[in-house]
């Protein structure tokens, strides 16, 4: 029994079957990649996991509890953090403030009316946020407006924000999409570092095979809304069905 269990999930958009009969089990403390051609339904699947979409059929459970019908912030408080395909950060806030929000969310929960306490004197939160920024080698950017950072740094910040919550499951949607090679390699190193430095389960959607094969322990191939195969990276590489459906496409 994995930490994340997806059973018979189906999702339609009008006449389009974006997902049909998806079964997926992600083992605790593993890195599980979901690959597949564009439009395969990868993002849709992720959206069903975090409460952005509600599947038409099937069930999704995290650590034995169903996530269906819960609001995004409730699912997050259960221990699932999500990194978006385009970095979603608080552009008007400073980098340090961006880091403080997940720290507050973790300590104070979904709502706390602390309107009289000075934010910068909350040593526990400030220290935790700064510690996290140091860990990510971003401490020199603490006073910057988040919106003015490079895309690579925004992605890094977003990952750091998710980690600050100490999630049990980290979901990443194409974290290296649109990145230059060097940035991609940095991200791979970062994710390796994350995985090695704490107990965490990572589910990653990725287009870039290099990223997938450097990180994943299990791979699920999704095509036209249904899982084609699920196996280890080595077996996936040689799998004829996968070559035909997916890898063949990207090799020319």
């Amino acid at each position: 029994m994995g930490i994340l269990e997806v059973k018979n999930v189906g999702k339609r958009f009008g006449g389009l079957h974006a997902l049909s009969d998806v079964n997926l089990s992600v083992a605790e403390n593993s890195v599980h990649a979901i690959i597949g051609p564009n439009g395969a339904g990868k993002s849709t699947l992720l959206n069903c996991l975090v409460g952005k979409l509600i599947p038409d059929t099937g069930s999704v459970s995290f650590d034995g509890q169903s996530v269906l019908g819960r609001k995004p912030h409730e699912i997050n408080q259960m221990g699932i953090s999500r990194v978006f395909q385009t970095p979603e950060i608080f552009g008007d806030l400073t980098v340090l403030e961006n880091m403080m929000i997940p720290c507050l969310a973790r300590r104070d929960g979904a709502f706390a009316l602390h309107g009289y306490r000075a934010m910068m004197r909350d040593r526990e939160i400030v220290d935790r946020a700064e510690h996290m920024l140091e860990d990510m080698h971003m401490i020199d950017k603490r006073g910057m407006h988040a919106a003015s950072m490079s895309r690579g740094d925004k992605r890094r910040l977003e990952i750091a924000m998710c980690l600050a919550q100490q999630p049990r499951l980290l979901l990443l949607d194409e974290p290296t999409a649109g990145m230059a090679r060097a940035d991609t390699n940095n991200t791979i190193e970062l994710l390796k570092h994350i995985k090695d430095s704490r107990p965490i389960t990572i589910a990653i959607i990725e287009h870039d095979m290099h990223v997938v094969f450097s990180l994943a322990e299990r791979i699920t191939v999704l095509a036209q809304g249904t899982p084609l195969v699920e196996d280890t990276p080595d077996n996936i590489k040689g799998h004829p069905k996968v070559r035909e459906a997916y890898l063949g496409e990207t090799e020319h």
Partner: protein
Amino acid sequence: MTDQTDYTPVAAQLPSRRAARDTILGLTRKDFGLLTVVIALTMLAPFLLNPFPSNSAMAQFNAGYPDLMQRFVIFGIFAIGFNILFGLTGYLSFGHAAFLGVGSYSCVWMFKLLGYNVLPGILLAIVVSGLFALLIGYISLRRSGIYFSILTLAFAQMSFALAYSVLSNPSFNLTNGETGLQVYTNDPQWLQGDGPRAPHIFGLAMRETETLSVGAWNFQFNAGYYLCAVVMIICFYLSVRLFRSPFGMMLRAVKSNQQRLNYTGVNARPYTLAAFVISGMYAGLAGGLLSAMDPLAGAERMQWTASGEVVLMTILGGAGTLIGPVLGAGFIKYFENIFSKINESTLHAWFAFLPDGLEDALVAIVYPFVGKGWHLTLGLLFMLVVIFLPGGLVQGGNKMATIFRRDRKGGGVEDDAAAQRQAGE
């Protein structure tokens, strides 16, 4: 909170961190400086607003008389509260006058039932408007953007209609319709005793005014004004605390990226609702003070124009900045009361030194912009500010400050907020 680990942050040496640690009244040095400025300005207002001798031609530009000074600070409170909602969360309410009106009615009712001490009235105004804001906010905040604005506008117009006619009939007269709610001699006033027969606070009448004459200058010190000023200073202080608190940061996060906030485990709804209720209470307090200064409450205080006015004040001064709303409120109230008083004969007097033809021509050009046409000037000014200074008057002030001290270090007190506003454009 004192669990210091062996880990010492590198950033501890950074200036902003040090500034955050030594605080006065829970405020950083910068913020405390701003508070001091606000205190000085409000306490010295009778002098500052009366720069011209009373026998000079410029005397009509003096704003240092009790009635107007009261309005400055009362609408300052209104705008400070509005800014907590609009400036921080970006939710633009077009119905805040409803809370102003509710506050006014509540206060007059306390005069009618209990007596002329203003304290119960002001307290009730805050409570009732807070509850009313809870109801309206709970419903309106189900939508965002323009739909939220329209919902608040609809509620305010409904409140206006209720106050103007529905809740004013012989069998149930809560608002006294178009006459306005006022105190009559046959009202119960259970706790009135033999206190002053006009609004007072523990015996000190609101209209009590001391006049200090220095040469041709007459400075007026009014009890009501000083009560309102003290209340405004408290309101300002609380809003600074709120801006710098985790709650304030969450509100800015709502404005910046609500999606990220929700996926970070924070429920944005109660945050926006709390901001809505707090700003509604500020508005109610302002309404209560209006009645405390002049015990008459009319439905027109709930009109949509009154709701629009506080939006203008906040944007003109600088939405999301600390002091901007206060400046905006003062600016607009000054225009409304001073510019509107300039009439044709005043203009002729000003331009009398010119040849007759030129004088008439100039008067003809200027006249549409003053007197009854003051809205025209205000509109033009508003356009200029929005186009060239999207951070409002505060941004203008900061720009000037930077020009003056180009080679010195450090920015204006409100650089951050103004810059943030610009970044949000």
